[in-house]
C-alpha cells in the first residue's frame, strides 16, 4: 500500500514533467505548425545549464532560474537564426532540419562538458522526506517538482485561456491571416512562443536533472514519450497533453515498479526483470495504438482549421 | 430502358446532415431521372457542396438514404460509388498536379479496368488505357495538350480536364460542382457548349452559380435554401416562382428574376 502511494506519486511527478515537455511541443506545433525534434535537446540543455549555473553560484534556486533564462534565450535565438525560415515548409523538412540540430547539440555538449555525465546535487533542505499523510513519507524534492509543475500548468492555462497573449496565441493557431491583418507582429509572437516552449522543456530538464544523471542524449527517449503524449492527447491541445501526460507517466512508472513482481509469478526471476521495462514501455505504445484506432485525431483534438 | 424512365437514376430521401448546431442538409429529398440534366441552385451557404459530398460519399449523412441505379449506396465509400458509375468534378480544381494531362485521365480509365495490383508491366504502355484517355481528352478539346503537366495548364483547361477525368470513368451520372467557377466569358461559352454535347450521353447533376448557363442547360432545376428544397421544377416555372425570387432577393444573383 505504502509502495503504491509512493509509486503513484512518482508516476504523477513523471507525468507532470512529461507535460512540461509535451506542452512546449504541442504549443509550437499548434501555433506555428512546426515539428521540433530538437525539443529534447532543449530539455538536455536546460539540465546542463542548471548543473553549470548551480555549481557556479552555489545556490540551487538561483542556478535553476539562470538556467531557465538561458534556455529561453537559446530557444529564441534558435528560432530567430534558423527555425523561422522553416515555417510553412513541409513537415518533413522541419523534421530533418531539427534532426540535424540534435546531432549538433549532442556533439556541442560533448565538446563543452565532456562525454561523462554531470551530477546536480540537491541542497540539504530539498532532500528531507516529508510526511504527506500519517506514516507516509515522500522526498521533498519530488514533492516540489509536483507543486512547481502543477503551478506552471495552471499558469499556462491562465495565460492561454485568459490573457491577451493567450488570445493572440489561440487566434494565431486558427487564423494566421487574421492576426497578421490586426497589425500584430506575428514574427515576434512566434519567437516568444518558441522561447516559452523552450523554457518549459528546459524547466523539465533541470527539474529532472537531480534525479537522473545529466547526460548526452537524455532528451531523446523522453522526446519520443512526449510525441506519444501529444498524439494521444491530440496535437495542439494543451488539455489533451496534460491528461495524456499524467496517464503515460503513471503507466510507465507503475509498470516499471510492479510488472517485475507480476511477471515473476509466471517467468523466471532474471527473465522477468529484463522483460518488465520492455513490457511497460510497450504498454504506452499499445495504448497509443488503441487510441489511434479508435480516434485517429487523438482524444482531444484542438478545434482548428 | 423502360425501367429507367419510371425509376429515377438517383433517389435521395430525407437526407439530414448536421454540423454542430447547423443543419446543412435538412430533410432533403430529390430525384434525378435517367437522361436529364438536373441543376441545383441556391444562394451561398445553401448546402450545395455538402449535398454533393454526401452524394459522392466524401461525407456521411446523419440520416436518410441515397439510392443510385436501384441500389442503396448511403453507406458506400467514395471509391465504390465511382465503380458503380457515379463520377464527380470538384468545385476547386482537384487534379493530380504531378501528372501530365493524359496520365490524369488514363489513371481514371485504369480505375475502371480491372484491378491495379499489377506491379511489373509499364502502365503507360497499355494501349487501351491510353486510347480511352486520348478519346476523353478529345471530347473536351484537350487532345493537343495531352503531354503537358497539369501545373502548366490554364485554369480553363484544368476545368476541361476535370471533365475528361470524370468521363474516363464511364459514368452513368456526372456530378458537376460549379464547372464554370473562375472561367472567363469565352471559356464559359465553351464549357456550356461542351455540356450541351455531353448531356445527350450521360445524366448530369449540375451545381452552378452562373444562372445564364443553368437556365440554358437544365431540364429541371432544384432550388436549395438553408439545406431545404424550396422548389423543383422546369426552368420556366422556377423563373416565375415567388418563393425562389424571395430567397434570392438581396443575394447577388437577383438575375433570376429577369433572365
Amino acid at each position, binding site marked *: 500500500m505504502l509502495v503504491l502511494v509512493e509509486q503513484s506519486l512518482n508516476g504523477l511527478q513523471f507525468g507532470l514533467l512529461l507535460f512540461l515537455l509535451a506542452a512546449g511541443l504541442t504549443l509550437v506545433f499548434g501555433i506555428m505548425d512546426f515539428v521540433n525534434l530538437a525539443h529534447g535537446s532543449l530539455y538536455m540543455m536546460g539540465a546542463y545549464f542548471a548543473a553549470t549555473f548551480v555549481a557556479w553560484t552555489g545556490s540551487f534556486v538561483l542556478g535553476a532560474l539562470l538556467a531557465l533564462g538561458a534556455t529561453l534565450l537559446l530557444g529564441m535565438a534558435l528560432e530567430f537564426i534558423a527555425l523561422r525560415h522553416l515555417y510553412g515548409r513541409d513537415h518533413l523538412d522541419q523534421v530533418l532540419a531539427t534532426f540535424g540540430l540534435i546531432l549538433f547539440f549532442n556533439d556541442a555538449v560533448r565538446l563543452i562538458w565532456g562525454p561523462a555525465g554531470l551530477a546536480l546535487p540537491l541542497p540539504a533542505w530539498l532532500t528531507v522526506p516529508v510526511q504527506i499523510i500519517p506514516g507516509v513519507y515522500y522526498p521533498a524534492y519530488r514533492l516540489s517538482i509536483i507543486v512547481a509543475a502543477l503551478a506552471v500548468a495552471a499558469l499556462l492555462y491562465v495565460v492561454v485561456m485568459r490573457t491577451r497573449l493567450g488570445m493572440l496565441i489561440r487566434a494565431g493557431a486558427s487564423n494566421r491571416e487574421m492576426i497578421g491583418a490586426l497589425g500584430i507582429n506575428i514574427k515576434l509572437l512566434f519567437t516568444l512562443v518558441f522561447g516559452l516552449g523552450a523554457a518549459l522543456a528546459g524547466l523539465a530538464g533541470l527539474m529532472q536533472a537531480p534525479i537522473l544523471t545529466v547526460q548526452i542524449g537524455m532528451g531523446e527517449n523522453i522526446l519520443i514519450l512526449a510525441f506519444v503524449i501529444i498524439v494521444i492527447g491530440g496535437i495542439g491541445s494543451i488539455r489533451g497533453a496534460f491528461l495524456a501526460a499524467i496517464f503515460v507517466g503513471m503507466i510507465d512508472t507503475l509498470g516499471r515498479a510492479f510488472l517485475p513482481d507480476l511477471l515473476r509469478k509466471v517467468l523466471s526471476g532474471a527473465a522477468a526483470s529484463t522483460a518488465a521495462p520492455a513490457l511497460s514501455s510497450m504498454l504506452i505504445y499499445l495504448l497509443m495504438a488503441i487510441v*489511434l484506432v479508435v480516434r485517429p485525431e487523438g482524444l482531444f483534438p484542438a478545434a482548428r482549421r | 430502358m423502360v425501367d429507367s424512365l419510371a425509376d429515377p437514376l438517383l433517389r435521395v430521401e430525407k437526407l439530414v446532415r448536421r454540423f454542430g448546431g447547423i443543419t446543412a442538409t435538412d430533410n432533403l429529398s430529390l430525384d434525378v431521372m435517367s437522361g436529364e440534366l438536373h441543376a441545383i441552385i441556391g444562394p451561398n451557404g445553401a448546402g450545395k457542396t455538402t449535398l454533393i459530398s454526401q452524394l459522392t460519399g466524401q461525407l456521411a449523412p446523419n440520416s436518410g438514404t441515397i439510392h443510385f441505379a436501384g441500389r442503396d449506396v448511403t453507406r458506400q465509400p467514395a471509391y465504390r460509388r465511382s465503380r458503380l458509375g457515379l463520377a464527380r468534378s*470538384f468545385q476547386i480544381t482537384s487534379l493530380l498536379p504531378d501528372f501530365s494531362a493524359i496520365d490524369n485521365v488514363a489513371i481514371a480509365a485504369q480505375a475502371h479496368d480491372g484491378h491495379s495490383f499489377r506491379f511489373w508491366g509499364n502502365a503507360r504502355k497499355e494501349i487501351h488505357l491510353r486510347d480511352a484517355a486520348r478519346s476523353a481528352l478529345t471530347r473536351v478539346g484537350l487532345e493537343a495538350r495531352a503531354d503537358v503537366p497539369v501545373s502548366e495548364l490554364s485554369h480553363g483547361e484544368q476545368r476541361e480536364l476535370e471533365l475528361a477525368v470524370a468521363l474516363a470513368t464511364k459514368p452513368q451520372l456526372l456530378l458537376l460542382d460549379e464547372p464554370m467557377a473562375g472561367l472567363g466569358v469565352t471559356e464559359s461559352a465553351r464549357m456550356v457548349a461542351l455540356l450541351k454535347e455531353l448531356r445527350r450521353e450521360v445524366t448530369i447533376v449540375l451545381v452552378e452559380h452562373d444562372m445564364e448557363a443553368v437556365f440554358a442547360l437544365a431540364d429541371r432545376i432544384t432550388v436549395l435554401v438553408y439545406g431545404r428544397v424550396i422548389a423543383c421544377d422546369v426552368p420556366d416555372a422556377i423563373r416565375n416562382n415567388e418563393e425562389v425570387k424571395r430567397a434570392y432577393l438581396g443575394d447577388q444573383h437577383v438575375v433570376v428574376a429577369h433572365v
Partner: protein
Amino acid sequence: MTFPITPRNIVAALVVAGLLLLPLYSQLTGNIFILTLFTRIVIFALAASSLNLIMGYGGMMSFGHAAYLGIGGYAVGILAFEGIGSGFIQWPVALAVSALFALVIGALSLRTRGVYFIMITLAFAQMAYYIVSGMSRYGGDDGLTIYKRSNFGGLINLSNRVQFYYLCLGCLFGGLYLIWRIINSRFGLVVQGVRSNEQRMQAIGFHANRYRLVCFVIAGTICGLSGALLANNTDFVSPAVMYWTRSGDLMVMVILGGMGSLFGPVIGAIVYLVLEELLSQFTEYWAMIMGPLLLLIVLFARGGIMGLLGRLRLG
C-alpha cells in the same frame, strides 16, 4: 527504353560503374578499408531506396524505417544462435517477418496522416526497439554476436569480402530494378496518384489505403533484406540498429540524394556515409558539422543532389 544524356543520368552511370569496379581498385591498391566502407554503404543504399519507395513515391513519411534493419538482422541472428545456419531459411524468414511487421504497423499507422503518421511510425519502431532490448536470451541491450554468416551451400561464400560485396551490390541493383518496375506499373501510378491527391483518387474509384498499405509492406520487406545483409556484414546485431536516430539517418540519405528519384537514395547514402567517415577522421566532433550542414541542405537545396543535377543543363 532509352536514357537521355542528362547530368543526372551521367552521374548515375558513373556511380554504377564505380560501384562495380570498386573491388578491383581495392585489390590493386590493397586498400581493404574502402571495400568494407562501401559494403556498408551499399547495404544502407538499399535500405534508403526502400524508404524512398514509400516516402518519395508514396508520400508516406515513415520515421521508423530502421525497425526493419533490426528485424531482418535479428531474424538472421536468432536463427543462427538457435543453430539454423542456412541462408535459405534465414533470409526468407527475415523477409517474411519484416513484411508481417510492416503489415501490422502499416494497417494501424495508415489511419493517420501527416505529422501523426511521422510520429506514429517513430513510436512503433521504438516499441520494436524495446522488444529486442528485452530479449535477454538474445543479448538484450548488448546485442547478439553472429558467429557464422548465413550459409548458402556452395553457391556463394559470405565470408569472402569480394563475394559478399557483390552479393550486396546485386541486392541493391535488384532492388532498384524492382522499384523502377513498380513505379511505372499500374500499382505505382496509383500510389503516386494517392500521394498527389488522395481525395481525387478516391473519387475516381481507388481504395487509397489498400494501395498505400501494400506499398508500405513492399518497402518494409526490401529493408528487411538490407537488415539481413547488415547483420552478416557486422557479424553482430543489436537494438542500436533500430534506434530512432538510425531511421533519421535513412531519411537524411533519401532527402540528401533526392526524394522521389530512383537513384537519389544511392547517391545520398554514399555522400552521407563518406562524409561521416571523412569528418570523423578530421574531428571527433563531426556531428557538429554534419548537423548544421543538414539544416543548410534543407533550407537551400530542395530536391537534394539529384534535384540540383536536374536543374543543371548540359552545354
